């Protein structure tokens, strides 16, 4: 009995999710003005019917909580899917781009004016401004980069030096052998 009720609830919920999604997608596709009621109605109607049925059939069970969680998960997943589809349209990307541009159009002069005002105020007070501190930090970063480059070169020089020492050792060995063989040769000739 309980399983039956659960199954019915799941089925009903799926149905309402599908219907709600259809309404939503239809609205998006046809570019209509959004009517929240049209989207919510199938969810609400069927949700109420489902809960009414659950409450009038059988004994109350703590599993109802699990069922509720399952429904909400499905509902969120459906919403997520619908939103993903809506946000995956060029219309959405265009709207977002326009909004962002609008924000930047407002932000840019405001930011510039605020910065100029703050710079002037801080200069008057004899306190370093943000841009001055950033410029200083930039110098530190550049200095660090230079130090890193010098360290890299020194490492390369050290590697070259150790390679040279190795080469020097090998040359010494060759010279030693040459001297020895020359001496032997002279002795043999004598």
């Amino acid at each position: 009995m309980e399983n039956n009720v659960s199954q019915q609830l799941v089925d009903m919920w799926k149905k309402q999710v599908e219907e709600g999604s259809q309404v939503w997608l239809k609205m998006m596709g046809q570019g209509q003005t959004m009517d929240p009621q049209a989207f919510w109605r199938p969810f609400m109607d069927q949700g109420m019917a489902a809960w009414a049925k659950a409450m009038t059939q059988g004994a109350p069970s703590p599993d109802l909580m699990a069922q509720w969680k399952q429904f909400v998960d499905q509902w969120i997943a459906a919403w997520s899917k619908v939103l993903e589809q809506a946000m995956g349209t060029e219309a959405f990307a265009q709207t977002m781009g326009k909004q962002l541009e609008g924000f930047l159009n407002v932000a840019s002069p405001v930011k510039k004016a605020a910065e100029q005002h703050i710079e002037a105020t801080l200069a008057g007070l004899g306190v370093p401004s943000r841009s001055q501190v950033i410029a200083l930090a930039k110098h530190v970063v550049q200095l660090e980069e230079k130090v890193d480059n010098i360290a890299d070169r020194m490492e390369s020089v050290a590697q070259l030096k150790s390679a040279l020492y190795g080469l020097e050792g090998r040359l010494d060995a060759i010279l030693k052998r040459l001297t020895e063989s020359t001496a032997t040769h002279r002795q043999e000739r004598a």
Partner: protein
Amino acid sequence: MKDEQFTMMMEMPQLSPEMLARLKEETQRNLLRMKHFSEMVLNPKEPAIGPTPRREIYRTNKSRLWRYESTRTVKTPLLFVPNLGISRPYIFDLMHKGSFIEHMTAQGFDFYLVDWGVFGPEDNDLTVEDAVTKILPRLARKALESSGASEMSVLGYCMGAPLSASFVATHPEFPLKNYIDMAGPIDFAHVGLFGLWLDPRFFDVDKYVDTLGSIPADMVKMGFKLLKPTMDLSTSLNLWWNLWNPEYVAGFNALNKWANEYLPFPGEFFRQWVKEFYQQNKLIKGELVMGGRAVRLERISCPVLAVGAKEDNIAPPGCVRPLMDVVRSRDKEYLELPGGHISLIAGRGASVHCWPKVASWLKARS
């Protein structure tokens, strides 16, 4: 008639012993939920993150190279390159038994992590090219020196994959043993919603960078939240549902701390990243030039593993898999695993589906 109805309404339903036990369990859970909730609100504890011991090997500007303690039984060390900006890298060593780094070091890998750091407004001139041709080669060389090994494997995760792929493709002198791309976009024509939103028809990156200078962490947060608007709702619901479970709560606290720490992007880095990767898709086309060298992925000839996540909406499998078509390697493999962009590498699912596969693939070639 009215009395009858009242009696029916008031009649207590008969409960089976199983149901009584479930009811009792649910009541206990609710009490625990309330207890943990009040603890979270009234006495929030800083979650313990980064359980694997590590040592700083090198530091340049904001970036650091970390070496993690391990038995080092695997001959070839591993350099892990994550994303620059967006989020902090401690997600890879989040908590005990929930850490990719802990897993890899337990397997005997000599593990090096590139921590790009948090860039400030003084770093706004830093470009992708700087990261690929200046920072990364230096850190990779330091890792190699520190390990004493003659070769090194590189693993790029998320944005770290195109960055590290660009590095290894332009530095043939780097002794690369194996290359792994985990959820890293290579073909930006299939990069999903971000690809559409950052399309040059809708997104003017020059105006954005010129106005803001750098990309603030809040903007980055907004972009990622928009990618999955229902995420916060489902996270809160799942938290409430599992609030009785102290292990879940500990995991949630750690993950939640990470998930809310967004990082800014240096302006010029963002400009180049969006233009040359997202908008012009230069990497896969072989048109990218870094430090005067052409980035040709076909120069990668070592064993390659690419891992895509089925439900990844940041780097969908369609943009990861094409790496297989461009590298010259004979030994190459593509894996598509369950999970999303983060759950591919962090969390319980990752410890089952992903880490053992990556570790065994790499071990066999190291």
